[in-house]
Every structure is written in C-alpha cells, then in structure tokens.
C-alpha cells in the first residue's frame, strides 16, 4: 500500500472510528455502504410501486396525480413520494462513498476488478433512474431537465431530428412522452437490479442487507424526514415560460448547471472520459498479485471447508481427477484468487503438529507455505524470553507492528489473519512455544478480505469448522482489531493481555511430544 493511499485509508478509518463509537463495528454505516445501497434501492422500488398505482400519464394529468398524492393523500402517498425521493438521494451518497472507499482501501484491483468494473455502469443507471423520475413530475424542474437533457443529447449529433424540439412550445409536446418516461423509469431499475446482482456475483456471503438495527434506524430517519420536509412538486411546467429559478436535487442534477456553461460535446467528453477512467482504474496500475493458492491432491479429500470460507468464490469442488477414494477435489480459479490464504486456514491438514511427514496441506499459498509459517513461528518463539511470552500475529493490511517487539513479544505477519489455522494456536500454546497468542490486523468489521476476522472469531469460538480445540485455554488468545489508527491502544491492549497471562493457571504439558496427528486426511 503506497504512502498517499495509506494516509487516505487512515483518514477514512479515523472517521469510521467515530461511527464505531456510536454504532459499534457491526452497525457502522461506513462498513455497510454496499448493503445500505441495496436497502435504499428496495425502498425506492416499494415506494415507487405504490406511486405508480396512482400516477397518471398525460401532459397535465401527471402533475395533477402527483399533487393528489402529495396534498390529499399526504399520509400515505405523500410519505411514499418523500421516501422515494430521499431514499434515492441517500442511494447516491452511499454509492459515491462506496466507490471512493473501495478505491482508498485498495479493494478494486487484482482479482477484485470485477466488482469495481461492473459497478461503473451502475453509476449511469442510477443517474438515469433519478433523472427520468424527476422528468415524470412535469413541473418546472422536469421542464428544465427535459430541455437541458434533450439539448445535451442533440449535441451528440446521432439523432436525425432534434429531440429538444419536442419541448419547443406547448403544442409540440405529446402525451406519449410520459408513457415513454414511465417505461424508462421502470425498465432502467430492472436493468439496474440485474447489474447489481452481477456486481456481487463473485462475492461469497455478499452483504445485501444491512444489520436489522441499522436498517430500522435508517428507515426511521427517512420517515421522520418525510414528515418534516415532504417532497413537493414545483410550479407546473409551462413550455411558454422559461424555468428561471429552479430548486435542483443536487444529488442527481449537480452537473446540469454546467450544461449552461460548458459546450455539450465537452460535457460528453468529460462524462465518457471519467467513465473510461473508472473502468480502467483497476489496471492503472495493476495490482502486483501474489501467486494464487494451489491444491495438493495427495492431501485434499474434497471436504469443502476452503470452498465455504473463500470470500471471493475462488475455490470450487469438482469431481476427482486422481482416482483417489474421494468423490471431489478442491480447484482454485486463479483469476479469482486474492491469495489471502483464508482457504489455507480452513484446511484441516494445515496442522503444525504434523512431524512424521512433510507439512503439505491440501491447499497452500506458494508464496507463504504453511511449512514456512511453522518454521517462522518456531524461530520467532525460540527467541522469546520472560514469563509472558507472546506471539503477535498481524495481517499485511494492518498497522506497523515492529514497535511491539520486545524480549517477550515476537511479531509475525500473514496476508490475512484467517490464514492462521486454529491448530496453530493449539500447537503454540499446548506445546509451550509461547504463553499466549495475540491477533490484530484490519479494523473490526472491515476485514480487507471481507471475512477474515469473522471466520477467525467464529473458529476460535467453536462456531465454525475448523474449530479451536477445547483443550486450548481461550483466555490465552488475545485479539484487538486495530486497523491503522489505533496503534497506541493496540500497545495497551497487548500490554494488558501480557499482564493477564501471569495470573492464568499453567497449561498442562502434553505427554506425547511428537505426534503423527494430522498425517491422516481429515474428512
């Protein structure tokens, strides 16, 4: 991660820390931007369906039907209209924040290019939805949008006749225009839904729903706003009069004033240029990718734990190809693999207890093999001294851990913390290589590889396979998900953890020092 990006990420995390304090890591809205986007989308769909029941297509009927909803049926139609508008505005906010955040956090390159790339067309679709929606009201704002948009489209020079001439005088306007707008306003969100689905296609356990509490709070916020400041129409459109002073929705229409000042072709060049730049961004420059995970069939029985745990659907099960007595085998799709190592942490054969045979697990990272992890750990542990010897494991995306080093503390790094199999904790603690293991890395609720922290906590809590064995004293495993901004607190948490180790009962030394457990294939 480069310097400027690291600074930007730290800035983001600083803001998120504030939200953490109010909402907690799980409800932190900045950790839920994508899910909130989906939530706002569904609010606009539901409220839009209600509005559509009462909407009348026609030059004057469109405005009148919305006035009826807003003024007469204010308690239902008016609220729905306000929810429709404000949820779509909120969608713009979370979508833009989501885009910037994923860029800053460097989660758009390498194997993750697909979600970024498919997200770019969504920008156009969301704006097309919003703009066509405002068009349907047929007030002076709609009139302004209709004329400005068609004038801009005319500058493309691809239409045989000027589209803007449809809005020249009251006599040139056709009622069919509203039918077309309704079609666009329904069709585009449906296309959008399809693209949104494609957008998350490569994510396992994609978050498409925010936590219930956050969703409830957000909906309540929109409802309160709808009652306090209902969405209203402006004066009815009149093509004989120029809309002079207009109350724009700046979320959707911020670029429109530019159309009054910048030539249309230049605006098209900017729009297409920005779109192209966004599309190409994952390769400007491309991520220097580590070697993808690889499967060793001699040690893979096709149990599927790696498939379950891979956050990017890069591992799949396929029929066995080596004639072994198992029906399936794991297969890695190299182009989808982020080399996070979470699959290695999920593999039951990734156990450091193996001594009689080489430590080769069913799935491994060629750039950081589990054998090397054990060797590095043993070397680091052998240099520890004192009564509370701690091995600190951090991840590549986390803070600089070098200042944590001391005679009693050794620091080790992994691509993702979930690369560490639970058997390593067992091995370190019950074999007395250290008195405790301390985990740190990304900020809580915001694992760079999406699910690393979650899987690790579930494995340690005995909720996810592979489980931490019960013989391992859980209190000898500490964790603090610091992110980049909690360096001082990380030091304190580690010091507290180290101090607490002295008061724990000693770990029973195991009778058999060299065991062959793990040599067998785990099913």
């Amino acid at each position, binding site marked *: 991660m480069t310097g400027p990006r690291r600074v930007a990420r730290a800035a983001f995390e600083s803001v998120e820390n504030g939200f953490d304090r109010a909402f907690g890591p799980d409800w932190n809205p900045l950790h839920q931007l994508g899910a909130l986007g989906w939530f706002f989308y569904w609010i606009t769909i539901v409220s839009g369906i209600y509005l559509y029941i009462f909407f009348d297509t026609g030059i004057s009927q469109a405005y009148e039907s919305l006035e009826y909803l807003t003024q007469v049926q204010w308690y239902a139609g008016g609220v729905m209209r306000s929810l429709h508008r404000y949820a779509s505005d909120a969608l713009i906010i979370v979508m833009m924040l989501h885009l910037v955040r994923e860029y800053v956090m460097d989660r758009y390159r390498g194997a993750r290019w697909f979600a970024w790339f498919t997200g770019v067309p969504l920008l156009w679709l969301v704006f097309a939805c919003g703009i066509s929606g405002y068009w349907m009201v047929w007030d002076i704002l709609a009139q302004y949008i209709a004329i400005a948009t068609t004038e801009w489209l005319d500058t493309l020079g691809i239409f045989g006749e000027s589209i803007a001439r449809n809005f*020249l005088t009251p006599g040139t306007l056709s009622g069919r225009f509203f039918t077309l707008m309704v079609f666009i306003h329904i069709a585009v969100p449906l296309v959008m839904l399809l693209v949104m689905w494609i957008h998350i296609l490569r994510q396992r356990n994609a978050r498409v729903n925010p936590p219930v509490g956050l969703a409830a709070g957000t909906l309540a916020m929109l409802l*309160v706003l709808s009652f306090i400041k209902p969405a*209203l129409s402006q004066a009815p459109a009149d093509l004989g009069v120029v809309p*002079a002073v207009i109350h724009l929705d700046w979320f959707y229409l911020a670029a429109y004033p530019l159309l009054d000042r910048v030539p249309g072709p230049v605006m098209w060049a900017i729009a297409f240029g920005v779109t192209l730049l966004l599309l190409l961004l994952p390769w400007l420059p491309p991520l220097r990718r580590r070697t993808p995970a690889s499967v060793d069939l001699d040690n893979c029985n096709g149990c599927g734990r790696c498939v379950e745990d891979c956050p990017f659907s890069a591992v799949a099960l396929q029929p066995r190809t080596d004639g072994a007595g198992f029906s399936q085998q794991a297969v890695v799709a190299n182009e989808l693999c982020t080399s996070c190592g979470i699959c290695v942490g999920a593999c039951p054969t990734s156990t450091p207890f193996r001594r009689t045979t080489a430590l080769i697990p069913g799935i491994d990272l060629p750039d950081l093999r589990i054998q090397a992890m054990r060797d590095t750990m043993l070397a680091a542990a052998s240099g520890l001294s004192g009564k509370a010897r701690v091995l600190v494991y951090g991840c590549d995306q986390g803070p600089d851990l070098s200042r944590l080093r001391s005679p009693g503390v050794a620091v080790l790094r992994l691509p993702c913390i979930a690369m560490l199999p639970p058997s390593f904790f067992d091995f370190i603690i019950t074999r007395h290589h250290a008195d405790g293991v301390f985990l740190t890395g990304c900020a809580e609720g915001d694992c760079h590889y999406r699910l690393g922290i979650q899987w690790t906590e579930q494995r340690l809590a005995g909720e996810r396979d592979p489980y931490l064995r019960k013989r391992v004293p859980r209190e000898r495993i500490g964790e603090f998900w610091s992110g980049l901004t909690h360096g001082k607190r990380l030091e304190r948490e580690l010091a507290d953890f180290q101090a607490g180790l002295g008061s724990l009962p000693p770990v029973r030394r195991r009778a058999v020092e060299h065991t062959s457990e793990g040599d067998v294939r785990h099913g």
Partner: protein
Amino acid sequence: MVRPVQLLGQAIAYAVFAGVVGYLAASPAYTHLDPGLALIKLSFSHAGKHQGECRQRTPEELAKLAPNMRRPLDCPRGRLPLRVELVLDGELLYRGELSPSGLAGDGAAMAYRKFPVAPGRHHLAARLRDSDRSAGYDYEKEAEITLHPRQNFVIDFRPALGGFLFL
C-alpha cells in the same frame, strides 16, 4: 447493551445525514435564467437546396432503376448551407451559416440557439437563405413583438406554412 451516549451519537449521525439529504434534495436554488429576462429561441430543421441543378430522368432511365428508387428527378446529393440572420431592434442578434447534416452533407440543417433579451416591445426580423443566390434572402419575416419576463419566444421555420413562425 447500547449506552445512552451511543444512542445520542446515532441520533446525531442520523440527523446530520437526514439534514444533508433534505437540504440538498431541493436547495440551494439555481438560477438558470435571470427572471428579469425573456428568452428568444431559434429552432428549426430545414434542408437547403441541392448544390446543383436537378435533371429530369427519362422514362428509359427510370425503367432501369429498381421500382423503389424511381424518382423522377436526378439531383446532386449535397445540399447548400443555410444562411440565417436575426435582427432585434435594428441590431444584429445572430448571423450564421448552418451546414447540412449527414456524412455526405445531404441532410437538413438544424438550428437551435437561445438569446436572453430584455422584456418589452421589440422589432424582430428573421431572414433565411437556402439557395445559391449571392445576396439577399429567400425567406424573411418582420414583426413587432412584446416579450414578458421569462417568456419563451420561439422562432420556428416551416416553408409549408410560409416560412418563419413567431410562436
């Protein structure tokens, strides 16, 4: 267990978010046109004359053509540009040459221009040349007009209706 201070923090966050959404959804107002002005909009689509003389095809020539292509006149493809002039109260408001559309220059020329002007009574003259004459205009219309603030005054051109239309 959510502490009261956390609830307060959440309430503030929601309020700020709602405030931003509620405000920017309709504010600040944007002035697209000075409300004290009127707008004259020149907009039309018209094809100029062909760049050369048309020739009447003979019956033999027509018979050789596919049925759907039997047009009696054989004209050069390209069209002449239009020359347009608007004069308001004796002062030139616009003068321009409009090229025919299409890659071969065989389509209609299109005009779409907007001119904010002061409201009140004006003398407006519109002129258009669509032939290869070297001076003067083929179409011309003059009128006394009264513009109101924010009025959208349209100048259209339809030869079938006699030329310029002031709407």
